[in-house]
């Protein structure tokens, strides 16, 4: 039976202080690692017979404009199918140099998911076989899901909700 404590113990034994920030969000163990280590950690989680996180559930990016030098976050959600255990790994990267190693060699799933993260957030997945836009047009020269692009036209004055907004 795989528990969060075992995972934590094994990861710390292998990577020491390179894995940190262990928290639990609604039943899913979450931790961080420097962005250079993402492939190493995921390979270890994948290859270790006891851990067996061989299934990539989800991969996405998040933009935190206020965090200096770690504006972009790439979030991996891996799962051990047999045990039904999910695990979330986060890496942070500065927006000026958003290079993160690709995990396409490990999970075929991540091919389009990384293209999607690139398309919307501009994360440059180093080593990706075909890193081109997937949803948006090829001519687009910005990354629309970043927070500097507000959804509505900010020059509109007829929809002022200062009275109610937070």
């Amino acid at each position: 039976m795989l528990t969060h404590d075992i995972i934590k113990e094994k990861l710390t034994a292998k990577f020491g202080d390179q894995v940190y920030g262990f928290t639990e969000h609604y039943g899913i163990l979450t931790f961080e690692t420097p962005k250079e280590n993402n492939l190493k950690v995921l390979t270890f989680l994948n290859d270790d017979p006891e851990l067996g996180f061989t299934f990539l559930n989800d991969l996405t990016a998040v933009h935190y404009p206020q965090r200096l030098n770690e504006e972009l976050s790439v979030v991996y959600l891996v799962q051990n199918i047999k045990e039904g255990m999910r695990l979330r790994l986060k890496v942070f990267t500065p927006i000026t140099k958003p290079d993160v190693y690709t995990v396409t060699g490990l999970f075929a799933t991540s091919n389009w998911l990384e293209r999607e993260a690139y398309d919307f957030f501009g994360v440059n997945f180093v080593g990706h076989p075909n890193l081109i836009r997937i949803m948006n047009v090829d001519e687009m020269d910005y990354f629309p899901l970043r927070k500097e692009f507000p959804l509505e036209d900010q020059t509109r004055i007829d929809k002022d909700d200062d009275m109610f907004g937070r």
Partner: protein
Amino acid sequence: MNQKQNIQLPEGSLGKQTSTLNLGPTHPATHGVFQNILEMDGERIIDAVPTVGYIHRAFEKLAERRPFYQITPLTDRLNYCSSPINNMGWHMTVEKLIGAQLPKRVDYLRVIIMELARIADHLVCNSVIGVDTGALTSFVYVFEFRELIYEIFEEVCGSRLTTNIGRIGGFERNFSALAFSKIENFLKTFPAAMKEFENLLTRNRIFMERTMGVGGIAADRALNYGFTGPNLRAAGIDYDIRVAHPYASYEDFDFTIPVGTTGDVFDRFLVRNEEIWQSVRIIEQAMVKIKDLDPAIYHADLPDFYLPEKEDVYTKMEALIYHFKIVMGETDIPSGEVYHSVEGANGELGFYLISDGGRTPYRLHFRRPCFIYYQAYPEIIRNSMLSDAVVTMSSLNLIAGELDA
């Protein structure tokens, strides 16, 4: 008029031995906006390059400007063949975030609606495999029952395809007696039609030869490609969110997970048919279970999130305050990160929600099953015939709305 056309051919295209074929984006055989640029050697496919994004509507960006309860209509438009499952998945994500406990009756009513949606979705998919192999009859037979399911949705929530069914915390109104009688009528008449559907196709020689050994994928490749739902189970892996990560009291029900062996079109067809039978079983159990529960309960006691009765808003001060707070987005939402997934009709539909305590999500990511497994399509159809590629595509249950989000 006799102007010479200056045709620019790509380099090397005059000498090459294969031909390039555009399948889609609007092709009658692809049932949706799918484009594949196929490289053909005669009728054999050597390579395929799928293009996605034709109906991309930026739901994730839109969601960042919308209060939580206004995101439900966006989820309708993901997998529009079974939108109730998407709606419920979103409600449950928010309920998980706010830590709401739901009454059993709400869970069971949700299970009924979700399983009806699953039946409707599987009926579309499986009967369309029949159509693509040249058997239109079976399609017409079962679509009558898809219509009956839509009538049930109409009775419960007022709409049919993009349902926006339920609310955060329960349902918008209680099920009427007519809704229950429609469900009972469906349960009574549907099995005979389903048997007829299976009689028409399952052991049909032409159908078997068109589908067996076509579009197969091995279990390890399917896992590596992130397959979920019936497509993964057809490859032989019994991963079902309803069992692996139960939600909405699915653990109270007795049902089996059908699995296939080869992961080909025929196995996917069989798995979906068996899931339809299992869904009928679950609905029958749920109909019995709700008989013992208080029939007046159809939502949880969540005044901060669940809109009060309109009559109370006009007559009671407290209800008016809650109504105002909900509509103006003044309710406090805990900040946190939630991942909730439901067993959608074509796989694991996940919602990754990051809340910073504001009235809208900080970030919302949809884990759309068919976006993830569609990338295996070139590998699946390589070295097969063009007609097999069409059947394979319909058997994967790709929904353009979900693919492009």
